[in-house]
Structure formats: C-alpha cells, structure tokens
C-alpha cells in the first residue's frame, strides 16, 4: 500500500467501475480498491488489477466509499460490510439518480442526487471537490450538501416564472381576439408586478444567480427591461421575448 489516500468503489457495472477507477486513480490521485460482485481488487504499481488477499483487506481504511445503490445487497456480506464500515465517508450513487436515504443504508451515508453513468456524469471539478472532502476527513469543515455533486439543486423559480410569462406573451400575440388582459402583456407593468414584488430591486442579480453562468443576451435584455434598468423598442419586444424563451427553455430543461 502506498501513502496515498484510499477510496473504495463498489459497483457491479463493469464499464462504469473501470471509468471511476481510472478517474480516482489517474486524475484524483487515490489508491483505488474496487469491488464488483465477488472480490476486492486494487491496481498494482504496474497498473494491473490484482485481487486483494484477506490480510491486505484487513489493512484497508478507505477515506471514502462510492457505493452503487443497486448493489446494496452486497452490504449483507460480512467482508463487504466490514470494509464499507471502515470508510470514513460513504456516498451512494445510481444510474438514474437518488432521491434520498434508504432504510437499508448505514447511518450518516450520503447520496448523489443526479444519475451517475460514468466519469462524464460530473465535471472534474465536482469530482475533485468530493475527493478533497474525503481527504479532509472528519476534520473537514465543508458541509456535505455544499459540495456540488451532493447538492440538491433548487428549481430556478424566477427563470421558470419569466419563461411562463414569455409563453403568455407569445400566445397572446397569436390570439385573434385581443382582450384587454391580453393587450396588457406588451406593457412593462405586466411583467414587473409579480417579479418585482418578489425580488424587489435584486431581480437582475437573482436571475444571474439562478442562471449560474453568463446570462445570454436576450434574457438579460428582457430582465433589465422588466427591472426598469433599460428600454426595449416596442418593435423589438417580440423578438427579444422569442429569443429569451428559447434560451430559458434550454436552461430550465438542464
């Protein structure tokens, strides 16, 4: 065994186990112990997979364990239970995402809400955060749910609301009979009343926070107009709303 931190990966899905083993070994610098469905193995110094003998197994003390929920039945095996329980932290994952803790899990086990089908299911930065958190051990100050990979993302309420208003505006444009209410959709007030009552003067910042990266121009232009920070020519409003709706649709579906 080397001086590197150890991570244990329990996953009977061969391709995903291999991808995760390479990620944790080659990119994140861990000594990786894996368990498929019958035996523990680790990589030798030459990079070959070796089955761990009982005496080597007794020395394993993983900093963290990544445990595929579909293989939870393995936890009933005494040998597996012993190694998992010796891990400082256990993080459950699955190929379709997990919604919360299950009764058969150990106490204080955490879970990845999103689907994990391989290395590409999270960015290297997100994996790195998890790896650092494992290394920090019990002294680590990071709250587990502040790690991006473990966080349960809130629905972007304001983006959804603006998307709904865009839909209302465009549907109203297509209506043959224009009622007074429908005619109001072209006024700034129609948009701003609900949004500014909730967000107040922070609307633009709130949208920026919910978006999470550079807000596309049509969305930013529309939001700044709603907030009263800029103008949009009446002739440009329809195009701006159409473009903003497209951008919002893609963002919300992520």
């Amino acid at each position: 065994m080397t001086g590197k931190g150890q991570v244990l990966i329990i996953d009977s899905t061969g391709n995903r186990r291999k991808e995760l083993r390479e990620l944790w070994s080659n990119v994140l610098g861990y000594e990786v112990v894996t368990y498929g469905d019958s035996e523990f193995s680790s990589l030798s110094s030459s990079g070959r997979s070796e089955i761990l003998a009982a005496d080597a197994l007794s020395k394993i003390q993983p900093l963290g364990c990544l445990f595929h929920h579909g293989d939870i039945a393995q936890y009933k095996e005494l040998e597996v239970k012993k190694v998992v329980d010796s891990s400082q932290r256990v993080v459950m994952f699955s190929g379709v995402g997990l919604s919360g803790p299950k009764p058969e899990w150990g106490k204080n086990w955490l879970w990845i809400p999103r689907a994990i089908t391989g290395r590409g299911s999270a960015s290297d930065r997100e994996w790195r955060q998890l790896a650092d958190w494992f290394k920090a051990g019990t002294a680590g100050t990071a709250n587990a749910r502040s790690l991006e990979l473990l966080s349960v993302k809130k629905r972007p309420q304001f983006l959804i609301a603006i998307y709904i208003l865009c839909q209302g505006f465009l549907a109203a444009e297509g209506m043959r009979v224009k009622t007074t209410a429908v005619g109001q959709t072209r006024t700034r007030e129609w948009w701003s009343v609900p949004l500014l009552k909730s967000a107040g003067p922070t609307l633009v910042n709130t949208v920026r926070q919910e978006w999470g990266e550079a807000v596309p121009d049509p969305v930013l232009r529309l939001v700044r107009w709603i907030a009263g920070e800029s103008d949009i020519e009446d002739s440009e409003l329809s195009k701006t709303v159409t473009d903003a709706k497209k951008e919002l649709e893609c963002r919300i579906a992520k």
Partner: protein
Amino acid sequence: MSDWNELRARLSHDLIKNRLIPATSRMIKVVNGSVLADPLETFDTTVTVVWAETNPSLKLLFECCEPDLTPRNYFAVEPLVHCPPSTMEWLPDLIHELWVERHDVRGWCKSGCALAEGVDTAVQSASELLKRYDADEDKTDVLGALLRLQEAAIGLSTHLSLVGNRFMI
C-alpha cells in the same frame, strides 16, 4: 426532486429495475433448472410481492401526474402568485393547456397505465401457469409467460425513465 418525481424514481429504479426485472430473470433460471428453487414459492415471494407493492403506487403516479406537475402550480407560489387577477383569469389555464399539449402528458399517462396493465396480466398469467407447473413436463408455456413478463416490465421501466426534467415545465 418533487414528491411525484421521487415516487416515479422509486418505482422505476428501486422496484421495477432493481427488483422486479431481476426477479423475473431469476425465475427464468429457476424454470430452466440452472437455479435450484421451488418455482411457485420463488415467484410468490419475489415477483408477486414486488408487483403487489408497485402496482397501486403506479396507478397513483399516473393519476397524479397532471395535477402534481402542471406549471399552473407556479401561480400558487412566488413570484407568479403576485400576478394581478386580470392575468390570473387566463394565463394559468393557457399555460396548463400548452404544457399538456407540448409533452403529450395525457398520452404518456394513458400508455403508462396500459403498460402497467400489461405487466399485471403477465404476472397473473405466469402465476396461473406456475400453479399447474410440473418440472417434468414441457416448460415452453411457463417460459413464454415469464419472458412476456420480463418484456412487459422492461417496457414499463423504459416508459417511466422517459420523464426527466422534460415534464417539469
């Protein structure tokens, strides 16, 4: 994750994908003779039990899909709860109708109910055949019934996985 989506994920992943489908595969091995176990007892304690737990929840899932997921619900919370009455008169209903049409929500629920009925029929049919099953006789009927059950369960699982964030707005 909303309560509805949590129920969907639990049914799709925990019960159908990880329990019902493997239990059906195991039953095929039992009937084939590659796994030694009592066929009817194994079927009752694995397939029947899991399906009895899954089927009522599936009905609830399809019934609640439209009321639970409709974007009309966003008008009951911030920020759209502040829309004036003149907007509330038409926008929530319009948004709901657009959503139902865009995602074919009713079609998805109807197909889901039909797939669940298909699994139910396949479970009953396999159970009946297993009650009369004699290991020394021809296994074709029983194996056929189990394969139909496996296929129906995979179809239902796939159908449930088609919904991700797609339905959310």
